[in-house]
């Protein structure tokens, strides 16, 4: 189907230069950073790269489509749980019971039925992507079909996250409740907590981040991307033009959820724990602020924002434990009030002027070019310059 692939992935627009830049950045992350950074920092970098994948998904749905999801923690956690369940089933043969260790604590004698497929690694990997995507598609379909949008969508996703939090928190026997799944041993026979294995997880995370970036880039460049922006800017007109915005919104919600799931899986592999706390409301809203700080609808801004905000967070909360929450609150206010386009947006629009001004270069004048050649305008300009400065 040549037409459909053109619709989603326009061949001619992704320039080779961008591909090379992405590849170089990925290679730097893979080969230069690990020897350069001490283990603790590398650990943080790995976590934040995993979160950057989530941020890309949020940028796709919020930046481009204008749907503010406050419930991406659900998909993040589901991805994490999917891989964690597979890890949890790698019970060593010496263990007294063939069940995951926490289950015997609660007196579970038989593995719950939905745990069985997670014995298969392939299924678990597929589940990381598919379970969040399918859930998002279902939820999105039910919500978008009724043209529930804007803040209503945000509220509903927020309610959904509370619901999932309660569900996972309450089910001690199925998911170990509040404590979450932790204490993983092996993955495909490799010990998970080994430094060597963790390095490979890091490499795969970087590769996935690069791929996710390129995927989002392709998706947003073509007609599909333009439709998303059109939905963001005037959904009614899109509908009147003969498109059905619902299906696009459902699709983009699902893709974004899948990205969140992948991010969650990598995050879980690094931290070695997934618990219902990943479905905290606060965490889900934080994800949005990464994108807002970096710059909405810029993709690279989402990655940048996730890394910057999280590093700032770990630096600040190492120094002053209390101040981070003040700082985070202020960050929300500042970004919304003073920097609505985020860092990347600011760099694109304001920064060139500022640099020109600092260098003493003449300011570009925001008028029609013809106006500059109008003798009357030129005269007035001269007069003003003589009078004023």
């Amino acid at each position, binding site marked *: 189907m040549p037409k459909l692939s053109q619709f989603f992935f326009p061949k001619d627009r992704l320039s080779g230069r961008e591909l090379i830049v992405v590849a170089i950045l990925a290679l730097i992350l893979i080969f230069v950073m690990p020897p350069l950074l001490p283990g603790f920092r590398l650990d943080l970098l790995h976590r934040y790269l995993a979160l950057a994948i989530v941020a890309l998904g949020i940028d796709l749905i*919020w930046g481009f489509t*204008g749907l*503010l999801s406050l419930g991406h923690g659900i998909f993040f956690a589901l991805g994490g749980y999917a891989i964690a369940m597979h890890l949890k089933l790698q019970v060593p043969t010496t263990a007294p019971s063939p069940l995951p260790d926490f289950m015997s604590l609660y007196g579970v004698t038989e593995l719950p039925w939905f745990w069985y497929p997670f014995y298969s690694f392939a299924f678990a990997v597929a589940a990381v992507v598919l379970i969040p995507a399918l859930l998002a598609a279902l*939820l999105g379909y*039910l*919500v978008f*079909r*009724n*043209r*529930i949008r*804007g*803040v*209503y969508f*945000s*509220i*509903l996703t*927020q*309610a*959904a996250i*509370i*619901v999932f939090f*309660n*569900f996972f*928190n*309450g089910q001690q026997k199925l998911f170990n409740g509040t404590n979450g799944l932790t204490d993983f041993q092996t993955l495909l026979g490799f010990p998970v907590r080994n430094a060597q294995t963790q390095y490979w997880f890091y490499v795969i995370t970087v590769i996935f981040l690069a791929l996710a970036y390129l995927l989002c880039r392709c998706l947003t460049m073509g007609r599909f991307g333009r439709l998303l922006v059109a939905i963001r800017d005037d*959904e*009614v007109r899109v509908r009147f033009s003969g498109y059905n915005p619902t299906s696009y919104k459902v699709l983009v919600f699902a893709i974004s959820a899948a990205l969140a799931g992948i991010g969650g899986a990598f995050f879980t592999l690094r931290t070695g724990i997934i618990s219902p706390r990943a479905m905290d*409301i*606060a965490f889900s*809203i934080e994800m*949005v*602020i990464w994108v*807002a700080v970096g710059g909405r609808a810029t993709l690279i801004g989402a990655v940048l924002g996730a890394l910057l905000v999280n590093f700032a967070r770990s630096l600040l909360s190492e120094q002053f434990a*209390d101040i981070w*929450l*003040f700082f*985070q*609150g*202020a*960050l*929300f*206010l500042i*970004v*919304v*009030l003073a920097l*609505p386009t985020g860092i990347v947006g600011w760099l694109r629009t304001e920064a060139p002027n500022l640099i020109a001004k600092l260098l003493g270069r003449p300011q570009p004048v925001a008028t029609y070019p013809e106006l500059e050649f109008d003798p009357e305008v030129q005269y007035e300009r001269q007069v003003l310059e003589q009078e004023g400065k």
Partner: protein
Amino acid sequence: MTFLLESVFNGMSIGAVLLLTALGLAIVFGIMGVINLAHGELMMLGAYTTLVVQNGFRQLGEGWFDAYLLIAVPLAFAVAAGIGVVLERGVIRYLYGRPLETLLATWGVSLILQQLVRSISWQMTLQIALFCLLFFGGRWLLSKRAIAPRWQAWVSPVLLVLSFGISLTASLVAGGTVGLAMTKPWFGAQGVDVTAPSWLRRGVNLWGVQFPFVRLFIIALTVVCLAAIYFFLLRSQWGLRIRAVTQNRSMSACLGIPTQTVDTLTFALGSGLAGVAGCAISLLGSVSPNTGQNYIVEAFMVVVVGGVGKIVGSIVAALGIGFVNYVIGSGLMTRFLEPQTALFDFFEFFASTSMARVMVFILIIAFLQLRPAGLFPQKGRMVDA
């Protein structure tokens, strides 16, 4: 009969708390179209106000202590309304018509308020007061004088840095000299209990059902608040203006209604109601910096289910959600069913407070499939609801 009465009463009391919480939200959201995620924190401030008033009255003696609620309710209203005014003038005013940004900004405010309550001490109060005095006072003084235009842009940043530095140094010095009395947080991060006055601690037993007075008090408070809101919106001069601005902002402005004042007033009203709600919930459980978070999402659901901009909708939705919540959460459904049947197991699974929320959410999503705009949607010939 007994447990029918019991479930109606319990459902109603849950609904009353929900309604009280949602009322302020419904006003702000319905009239101004602003989603206020800091609403929960305004409630929390109301609850802490109650705590402070209670502690103050405890000093006065046992006889006085019983009357503290009479002061606490209006004071909670006033404190929350005051913060609401500051919030509207300082932040939300710049964000009208951008609901998603408002959402994020108010979330930022809510984080700041939470941490503020956790860590506020005399030292911090001193710092904030000094900063406000220096910064705003300095700006006011400078606005009286003529400043060369090229320096005008520098006034605020320089003042900001100066007053922040001075206030920080002063508070650190004060904290260093006075010591713990200065630096100890007032409330801390721990939950604190508010003791109900003795006349609320009892209950009455009718037809074999226990009616605690606290619950009855909250229901009464809700009714009073509702009546006051109705009276204010439908009978008073400012209520008329608020309704006019809701209907047509520019036309109202042309007719001489100060729309900005109306906005501030509406927001203060909604915030004040949050304060009253906080006062009520402080009687039900312990008060902690995250008190507000537990109620806020359900309050939003009440507003969405009820239909935005309709207080009647909020009433019906709050009572309905409260009732369903109680009936499912308390395991009432399982009493009517045979054990070991599929339906019994199903309801058994959801028979706890947290699982009832799961069920209620599913029901709400199902309900929104039938009536996407809520119970009482705005009528009109709009392309989009």
